[in-house]
């Protein structure tokens, strides 16, 4: 079965950064891109994320499935916003420059288009970075990274367990589903929703009861090995920070600071080119 956290092992400067660095950068970057609607910063982050994507040697076809999914998501979100709030841009920017009318309240304005442009830029600024994180971080290193940035190791270990057992549970779900379908439960669109939910439970109940046994077995094994006795633990996959790690984290912190500074300078989260 294909690994869902599509780790692609190719030598590149991005791969050489430690997992902890990439996690910190992902968080800082996504908060920076989330908090501001300043088009200038968003364009900069978008261009930089494309450059980083190129540097990482991840190819577009490695992630084409995810990209097409996100494209649909982005388009739908934009359409929905326009349908529900065609004048949202006007409310945000305080001016109205109509371009053409689609009837009723649906007047396309420059402000609305500009708001949508910013939304799309936000997607473009974030998606490559998330993909980079997913494709260049070894899942085994992820838990060690969480612990490194201050998450309690027991919690980090839960994340590690989750990543470890996702493929097993996926496989088990598939097996139970096939077994139940062989016994005649119907999951397809031909059934109505309530029936489908009931059939879903016919798969879920065995899956969850067996998972409860699994919890018992794993926690007994961990307790026998004295898990949780010490305040600290070491990680096999942990790597020491290199100078490049500090540079990367400092840069991302700088972007977040810039984003916050622009929000203050613009007197709000929106950079308004309509009043000058």
């Amino acid at each position, binding site marked *: 079965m294909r690994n*869902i*956290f599509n780790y692609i092992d190719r030598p590149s400067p991005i791969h050489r950064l430690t997992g902890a660095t990439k996690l910190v950068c992902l968080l800082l970057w*996504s908060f920076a891109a*989330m908090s501001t*609607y300043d088009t200038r910063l968003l364009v900069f982050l978008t261009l930089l994320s494309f450059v980083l994507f190129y540097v990482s040697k991840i190819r577009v076809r490695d992630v084409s499935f*995810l990209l097409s*999914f*996100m494209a649909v*998501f*982005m388009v*739908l*979100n934009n359409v*929905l*916003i326009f349908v*529900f*709030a065609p004048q*949202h841009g006007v409310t*945000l920017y305080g001016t109205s420059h109509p371009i053409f009318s689609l009837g009723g309240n649906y007047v396309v304005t420059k402000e609305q288009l500009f708001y949508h442009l910013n939304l799309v830029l936000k*997607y473009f600024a*974030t*998606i490559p970075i*998330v*993909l980079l*994180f*997913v494709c260049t971080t070894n899942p085994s290193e992820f838990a060690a990274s969480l612990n490194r940035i201050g998450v309690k190791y*027991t*919690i980090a270990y*839960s*994340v*590690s*367990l*989750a990543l*470890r*057992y*996702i493929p*097993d*549970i*996926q496989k088990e*779900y598939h097996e139970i589903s096939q077994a139940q379908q062989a016994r005649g439960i119907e999951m397809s669109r031909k059934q109505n*929703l309530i029936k*489908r*939910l*009931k059939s*879903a*439970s016919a798969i*879920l*109940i065995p899956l*969850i*009861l067996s*998972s*409860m046994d*699994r*919890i018992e077995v*794993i*926690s007994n094994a*961990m307790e026998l090995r004295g*898990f*949780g006795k010490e305040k600290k633990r070491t990680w096999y996959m942990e790597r020491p920070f290199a100078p490049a790690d500090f540079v990367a984290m400092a840069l991302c912190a700088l972007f977040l600071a810039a984003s916050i500074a622009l929000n203050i300078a613009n007197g709000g*989260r*929106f950079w308004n080119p309509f009043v000058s």
Partner: protein
Amino acid sequence: MKRTPVKTIVAIGIGAALFFVLGRFVAIPSPVPNTSICIQYGLLGFMAVLFGPLAGVLIALIGHFLIDLSWGGGIWWSWVIASGVFGLLMGLVSKKIKLADGEFGGKGAAVFNVSQVVAHIICWAVVAPVLDIVMYAEPANKVFLQGLVGGLSNIVTTAIIGTLLCVAYAAAKPKKGSLKEEKEEK
């Protein structure tokens, strides 16, 4: 089942993995864009009631974070947090339902369903849309509609799947005090 710290840790890990698998692979698309009928909240309600508030919060946060990450398209923090709040609220109910001792009768089902409806309303009609507006500056009527549709479908799936899971678990579990000491006749 006795709750120990290590068991809670493992339950969080396995719970998050289950949440992820159900949310990522078993989603049934709904007519409103960007929302799907999520059966993982039935599981979350059940796990939170069984393992308590800490497990509830973390299963939801980790599971939802991993789902968003696996789609590769940015993490929708407002909804991740709303899921966490649902896990927390359901975890608080675990004091009222002794599911861990295999008790889940009509009263348990009533408490479970009333609290899941209240918790879902708080999460999807208040927490998620308000955070969407604060964090992402999205138009209010759009996010409230999304929240409402998501919330309603979550209530239905939690009512069916969550309750069935609790009943099945309680039935498979020997009741507390079901063993009696046999007094030897003298």
